[in-house]
């Protein structure tokens, strides 16, 4: 090794020099990108809305070159907080504004319904409000009671703070501590996969996601709730009661690029994007 000293020293120095050049180059490149406030929008918030807003942002950037719309996730509450503090220009909130948030402006861009789902092999096709309450309160534990198989009901619910849960609790007049669940999930897809994996499970997810999954052959099915069969159409024309607004939140009336963007979200081009993400465009 000592006799390879010169070769080693040469290679080491060469490596060091190459690394320095590379790093300097990288730094130079990173300083040269334009960070112009006037054509840059930062949007943060709900992970439910993030895929939709990513697509809308892309469409907007194509129509308005030299603009940059960055979409980040972090949850509806983060979206609201970031908008208030100015860290984000627009916030995404997959719920109506809370009373303490009424000083902000909400722009609804779509609606999302919530459907109760069970495994496809479950013979039940509809549940009344009282029955759902009994199941989620843990008062009825066996599908047999409702005309199904003799099996324990596996109750799937959502984690606290999620707007889906709040909507569910609100509609079925339950409190969070009333619910006796067996599995708590975070995102819609986790719910679908959990119900798909267990023939005795019952859960609630976004209607659009559920409908899409059924079309793709996932082994779940949607239950009629209080007599109404869940569908995007029903949400659109208001006959389906379990629905929530998808809001873009700003501190005051939007101006400049933000105003352009929000106006864009109400245009016809975005309607097809909304449907592609399995949400419900607003009825005109």
């Amino acid at each position, binding site marked *: 090794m000592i006799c390879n000293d010169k070769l080693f020293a040469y290679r080491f120095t060469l490596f060091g020099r190459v690394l320095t050049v590379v790093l300097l180059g990288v730094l130079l490149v990173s300083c040269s990108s334009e960070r112009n406030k006037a054509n840059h929008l930062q949007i943060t918030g709900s992970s*439910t809305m993030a895929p939709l807003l990513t697509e809308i942002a892309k469409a907007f950037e194509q129509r308005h070159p030299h603009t940059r719309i960055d979409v980040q996730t972090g949850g509806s509450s983060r979206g609201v907080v970031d908008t208030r503090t100015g860290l984000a220009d627009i916030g995404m909130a997959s719920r109506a504004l809370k009373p303490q948030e009424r000083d902000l402006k909400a722009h609804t861009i779509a609606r999302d319904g919530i459907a109760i789902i069970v495994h496809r092999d479950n013979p039940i096709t509809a549940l009344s409000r009282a029955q759902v309450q009994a199941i989620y309160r843990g008062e009825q534990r066996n599908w047999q009671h409702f005309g199904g198989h003799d099996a324990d009901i596996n109750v799937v619910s959502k984690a606290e703070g999620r707007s889906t849960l709040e909507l569910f609790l609100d509609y079925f007049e339950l409190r969070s501590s009333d619910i006796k669940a067996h599995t708590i999930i975070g995102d819609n897809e986790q719910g679908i996969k959990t119900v798909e994996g267990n023939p005795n499970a019952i859960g609630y997810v976004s209607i659009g996601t559920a409908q899409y*999954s059924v079309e793709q052959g996932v082994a779940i099915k949607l239950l009629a709730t209080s007599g109404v069969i869940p569908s995007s159409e029903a949400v659109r024309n208001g006959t389906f009661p379990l629905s929530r607004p998808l809001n873009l939140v700003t501190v005051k009336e939007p101006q400049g690029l933000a105003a352009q963007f929000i106006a864009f979200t109400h245009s016809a081009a975005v309607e097809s994007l909304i449907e592609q993400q399995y949400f419900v465009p607003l009825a005109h």
Partner: protein
Amino acid sequence: MHSGLALRCDSRLLDRVAQTLLWLLAALVCGVFCWLLFDIVIEGGAGLSWSFLSQLPEDAGRAGGIASILVATLAVLVVCLSVALPIGLGTAIWLAEYSDHLIVARWVRRSLQLLAGVPSIVIGLFGYAFFCRALGLGYSLLAGGLTLACMVLPLLVGALEAGLRAVPEPLRQGAAALGLSQAGTLLHLLLPAAAPALMAGLILSVGRALAETAALLFTSGYVTRMPESLADSGRVLSVHIFDLTMNVAGGDHYAYTTALVLLGLLCAINALARLAVGVLFNGNVRRNEQVFSQ
């Protein structure tokens, strides 16, 4: 060593039993992993194509490809390693060679072990608060890389320190006797001798870095646009997989394909790491190959 290591008449039986047991357990472990690998390859193989690697994501990731995501992942990795390697090397050398008599060394080692136990989500939140907000980097690849460096440091230091400690003492004494400076001993003797450990540490770190999701979601972000600089936000492979499986309806298919690409990337980087360390240290990376195999 134990006294009474005289040949026991049942020790050959023990060896046979151990051999069978070890083969069985190893096969069990391998079997489960191969099952998982198999699932990924089968489900993801269909979507793999050149256009998948070269196009940008479309339709929330359900169509198009992952070009921007690959670039973002590589950028974050480069930042992570360029920060973690110097710090990790320096720390490991200091711990192994300079500080045995110091009590503070024990605390440095403990703090690194503690760092290894920080939940990835906490590191993500910390990274957001410190790198993105306090240091003003915002959602960026740079912030993501720095956060990853924090996660990867314990592994790197652990592997490297063990490698340096395993270098036999006579080597150091000989170097001192010949009048070689400490730096010289390090560069020409110790580091080359510890090269296999460096490689192992690098490979483990790259594996850990590529596997990290929560930490990067909050620091390098969610944007799928092709990043133009380190200050841009970009989505990495693991975050993309997370989004496709958990957040986007119908994203499973491309999630598997992305996972397959991630594994391929890991293989490629590992091979590259072996090559790089081999070239630098004159091929000293041939591991202490098993002396006796039966």
